[in-house]
């Protein structure tokens, strides 16, 4: 237990000064601008926006600079900032068929309508350090090819669904989804609430859980039905206007995972699905989220829930890195009073043991 302490103001102030000094680093090296972080460390910005659960590239870049590149600290800063802002409402659900895609692949169909578009991916790199990047210089612009941006991008899921081979996603026309930032998480959670939890959840945690399902801890035999990354408009109905307007465009990554089929007496066998959605370009996160989303459906699909990734309480209660980092790191705060009381208990117990030993020794000697 943490008990409030007083004192140390000067030391704390000087510690903050030291943080600021370390943040700036060698004054002979140019200072980073937020634009540089946004443009050249864009995937870090994407992760902070996703897990900070707030789409704002400038704020995420600022948080990364302030946290000196510690992304979990940056996520914490962004989460704290968002609590200071009023909520205007909820958007209309995103229509990702309207995405202007930078990347779109399917691992289930090679001739997917709309084509396999690799976009900017590390998938086919050799993971060799590129020392040419160590020096600055002119970089060539990416090549282009004739394209049509005006067509809607068909979904792989819809194609399979048409033949009844794939379960349709649950529909719900009750309007706005329930919101974890407005109400506490109650278990068992509905799938929309689980997805919200996973969307802001720690990528590393979800990656490990997703990986565990592949290794056999709740395997559900996944295929990437489709991954797409690109730009989608966000529609919103301002109360005063009463009609929908697009208030901006955001980048998102979407993963629709196709999984092991299930069937019953009434339902013929069909593939099942897991879903992942992240801000920016964040495929690893979207895929891990989709794997865990599917694993958490064990009960619904009549599968034995025997593995950590299938345990809703375990997953949802430990996915948030702001909560996790807070609770782990609070151990560094003064626990002196708490520890003192434990110390007293241990000393007392040791004294008792010592006393019993002495008495036993005396009894033996007497015999």
């Amino acid at each position, binding site marked *: 237990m943490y008990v409030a302490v007083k004192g140390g103001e000067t030391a704390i102030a000087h510690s903050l000064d030291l943080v600021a000094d370390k943040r700036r680093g060698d004054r002979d090296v140019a200072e980073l601008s937020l634009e540089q972080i946004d443009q050249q460390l864009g995937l870090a910005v994407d992760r902070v926006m996703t897990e900070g659960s707030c789409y704002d590239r400038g704020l995420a870049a600022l948080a990364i600079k302030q946290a000196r590149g510690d992304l979990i600290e940056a996520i914490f800063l962004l989460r704290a900032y968002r609590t200071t802002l009023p909520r*205007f409402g909820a*958007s209309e659900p995103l229509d990702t068929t309207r995405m202007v895609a930078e990347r779109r692949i399917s691992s289930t169909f*090679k001739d997917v309508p709309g084509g396999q578009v*690799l976009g900017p991916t590390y998938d086919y790199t050799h993971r060799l350090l590129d020392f040419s990047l160590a020096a600055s210089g002119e970089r060539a612009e990416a090549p282009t090819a004739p394209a049509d941006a005006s067509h809607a991008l068909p979904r792989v899921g819809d194609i399979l669904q048409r033949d009844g081979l794939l379960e349709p996603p649950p529909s719900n026309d009750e309007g706005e989804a329930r919101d974890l930032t407005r109400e506490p998480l109650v278990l068992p959670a509905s799938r929309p609430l689980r997805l919200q939890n996973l*969307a802001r959840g720690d990528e590393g945690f979800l990656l490990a859980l997703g990986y565990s399902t592949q290794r056999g801890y709740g395997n559900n035999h996944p295929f990437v039905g489709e991954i797409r990354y690109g730009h989608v408009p966000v529609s919103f109905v301002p109360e005063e206007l009463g009609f929908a307007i697009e208030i901006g465009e955001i980048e998102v990554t979407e993963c629709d995972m196709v999984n092991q089929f299930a069937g019953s007496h009434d339902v013929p066998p069909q593939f099942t699905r897991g879903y992942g959605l992240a801000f920016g370009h964040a495929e690893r996160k979207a895929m891990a989220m989709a794997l865990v989303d599917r694993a958490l459906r064990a009960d619904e699909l009549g599968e034995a829930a025997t593995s950590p990734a299938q345990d809703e309480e375990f997953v949802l209660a430990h996915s948030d890195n702001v909560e996790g980092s807070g609770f782990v790191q609070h151990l560094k705060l003064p626990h002196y009073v708490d520890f003192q009381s434990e110390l007293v208990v241990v000393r007392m117990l040791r004294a008792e043991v010592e006393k019993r030993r002495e008495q036993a020794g005396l009894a033996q000697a007497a015999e």
Partner: protein
Amino acid sequence: MSSNPTIARRQRWLSVLAKASGARLTALWQAVGLTPSYTVLRRPEIGLVMVQGRISGTGAPFCAGEMTVTRAVVRLDSGEMGFGYVRGRDARHAEIVAAVDALGQRAEWVETLEAAIVTPLADEAEARHRLIAARAAATRVDFFTVAREAGA
């Protein structure tokens, strides 16, 4: 889009203006040189909109995460109210959108604003999308499976 042409025009304008960059809109607005007299009913205010996604893209909605949004409301001296809702935290952007929305409700300004601001911004947005699509198209692949096709 609404079937009411007045609302449909406002929807289109507000969407085009919001999706443009604040700097670009400001430049076009200044170039038009209009200085309408208006009252700011709601000073630009930064807030959040919860972005909703859909399960597997088409299913039940869920909360995907928030985004920052700035809104402003102005009223022309002639009475028309204009609303600006834009992604991000650019106060000037939201206020200009509101001013253009208000002016657009006066028939005599529709053509000028359409030609000087809305059409150019819509064209630029389309060009941005075309460039994204063209760069993506250069990375389109055909995967050939190595396994022998049936009947071959």
